[in-house]
């Protein structure tokens, strides 16, 4: 090979960086867990974890913080993937936390914010010292400032003004009892990188990411699928539309987008030419204020 041949594509570079991060966590932190929602980012992260330890099994469990507001296709996918890999699945259940009074149902019925105490409770219960999250820096301006190894104090809080400097690929995973590190191996990936990687690696995804016919209604300019936890109010007309989901979250908060993209090629073309960010197009939860994500992260959100 000549010097000019020692080159990696952007996907190979990102993959190598993520694998390095995942291995570093397992080497330095005693009890990691991978947060797995069945969404595309956590699916890619799980694939990278599989690669990082091959031919050994993934040496940590995965955890789903389950709001109870799920898309059935995504739950089915989650269970199938977990059994293929032979990893342990822990479900941190919001409905169960509601029953035992850890959290109470917000007046608007959305459960995004009450996921945080449920997540923190589960991390404490299982004494996890590190939690892998699939967040990317291109998603949100608060996330753009967050470290790959993001320190959380014993209350699970993120202190954005007091972050540990992070140099080269040398990560500081030192913590004291009760503290933990949130780790974001996909920090430098963009939405387009994720899709290109899914295609390149032929990674299976839940069907709702691909264009399909669905009963929807328009609320505030966003198209919500009719679901047992997301029903039209008076005056919101239900119609059938060809849509797909760009993100997969709580079914009461995640909107679909009009799309004919029913193949990975078509989705990549769509993502490459879209002019609206992923969260802006699909997430009711980020619209509350300019610093919605920063505020939730300070409380211990993903």
């Amino acid at each position, binding site marked *: 090979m000549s010097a000019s041949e020692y080159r990696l594509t952007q996907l190979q570079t990102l993959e190598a960086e993520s694998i*390095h991060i995942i291995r*570093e966590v397992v*080497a330095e932190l005693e009890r990691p867990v991978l947060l797995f929602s069945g969404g595309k980012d956590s699916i890619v992260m799980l694939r990278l974890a599989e690669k990082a330890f091959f031919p050994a099994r993934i040496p940590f469990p995965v955890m789903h913080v389950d709001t109870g507001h799920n898309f059935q296709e995504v739950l089915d996918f989650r269970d199938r993937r977990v059994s293929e890999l032979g990893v342990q699945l822990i479900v941190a259940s919001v409905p169960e936390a509601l029953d035992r009074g850890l959290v109470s149902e917000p007046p608007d019925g959305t459960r995004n914010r009450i996921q945080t105490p449920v997540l923190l409770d589960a991390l404490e219960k299982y004494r996890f010292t590190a939690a892998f999250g699939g967040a990317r820096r291109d998603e949100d301006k608060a996330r753009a400032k967050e470290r790959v190894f993001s320190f959380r104090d014993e209350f699970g809080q993120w202190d954005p003004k007091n972050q540990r400097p992070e140099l080269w*690929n040398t990560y500081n995973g030192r913590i004291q009892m009760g503290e933990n590190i949130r780790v974001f191996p996909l920090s430098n990936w963009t939405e387009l990188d994720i899709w*290109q990687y899914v295609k390149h690696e032929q990674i299976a995804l839940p069907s709702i990411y691909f264009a399909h016919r669905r009963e929807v209604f328009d609320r505030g300019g966003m198209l919500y699928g009719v679901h047992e936890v997301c029903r039209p109010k008076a005056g919101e007309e239900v119609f059938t539309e060809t849509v797909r989901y760009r993100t997969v979250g709580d079914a009461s908060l995640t909107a679909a987008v009009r799309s004919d993209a029913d193949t990975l090629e078509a989705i990549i073309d769509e993502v490459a030419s879209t*002019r609206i960010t992923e969260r802006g197009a699909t997430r009711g939860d980020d619209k509350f204020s300019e610093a919605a994500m920063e505020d939730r992260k300070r409380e211990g959100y993903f």
Partner: protein
Amino acid sequence: MPPTMDMLRFATAGSVDDGKSTLIGRLLFDSKSIFEDQLSAVEAASTAKGDDYVNLALLTDGLRAEREQGITIDVAYRYFATPRRKFIIADTPGHIQYTRNMVTGASTADLAIILVDARKGLVEQSRRHAFLATLLRVPHLVLAVNKMDLVDYSQEVYDEISDEFTRFADKLNVSDLTVIPLSALKGDNIVTRSANMPWYEGPSLLHHLEHVHVSSDRNLIDVRFPVQYVIRPQSSQYPDYRGYAGTVASGTLKAGDEIMVLPSGFTSTIAAVETADGPVAEAFPPMAVTVRLNDEIDISRGDMICRPQNAPKVAQNIDAMICWMADDALRPGRKLAIKHTSRSARAVVKDLEYRLDVNTLHRDPAATELNLNDIGRIRLRTTQPLLCDEYARNRETGGFILIDENTNRTVGAGMITSAD
């Protein structure tokens, strides 16, 4: 957009006054990487603050405190892509109290853009940024002479700034310098060559970013493979498998190569270099791979695989340039944790040789401590040997971080100048 394009990481240094946010906004906007909802959010926020222009700084200043105070506090990472390359921008604040953030952003950068205002010419800050970029061995430097529209696109103004900076850069050992006159606000020489400056014959900024040759920046000579994790499946399918996982720091590895393991000094040959996708013909930086050897020798995390005739130093006395990043001062006698590649140890500061004035490059050997954002040269003694090279020769095996053992905070970044 083909998935086969490569990647360039660059850092931008400068302040809001130099037009840095406008420049980044312009690169993102012209590469269609700003989205409509982001733009309308920024427009709404600008209007609410009473700005009479769309303040693109609000795109990058992501934290509440930054927007409230109108300053950049921390490194923000931004992403854009052209058909040729994917870019990662580490957007760093310019003021001296954020030197540590600039150092952080520069540590992973292939290229640094230093912005100056054509009306003001080189200022203290420009020299500091150039020094920090060379201290961190960022291989490519761009001096962007901005706001050329405000000096009537004058070649004389440009030449004067360019000459002065080139003379300064000669003292710093800059390996590759490109000077580009531009106007971020008007778009001159950003994406395409500007008709307003026919006397300038160089590339536009984006053209330079797309074409600058970075693959030869890597060290492909010195084989350095820090063992990160030992993979032992102990499964029925792989009962005796033992693989050494890690990221190639430098050099290349392939099956059949003779290797030596440090610190033990045992030698063997490589049986295979593997990934989950199968064996690889040859591994090179920054690939994450698993190496199997033909002999069973005791190897654990923190060890280093190298070549018998080309080994790093095995050293406990380390001389290094330090950027101090904590509020409490660093003084000789202080004990710290040190993390270097995959190896952790403890270290004591034996001596502070000098503190460097980052503006004048003056060395002060009388200094007794390093304060937050200070840079100086220290001597460390470590509890265990580091397997290291000079930072100038190898960024991967020459850099380390210092950690306070009580608070666990990262308090310093070190670049090894010599070791024995």
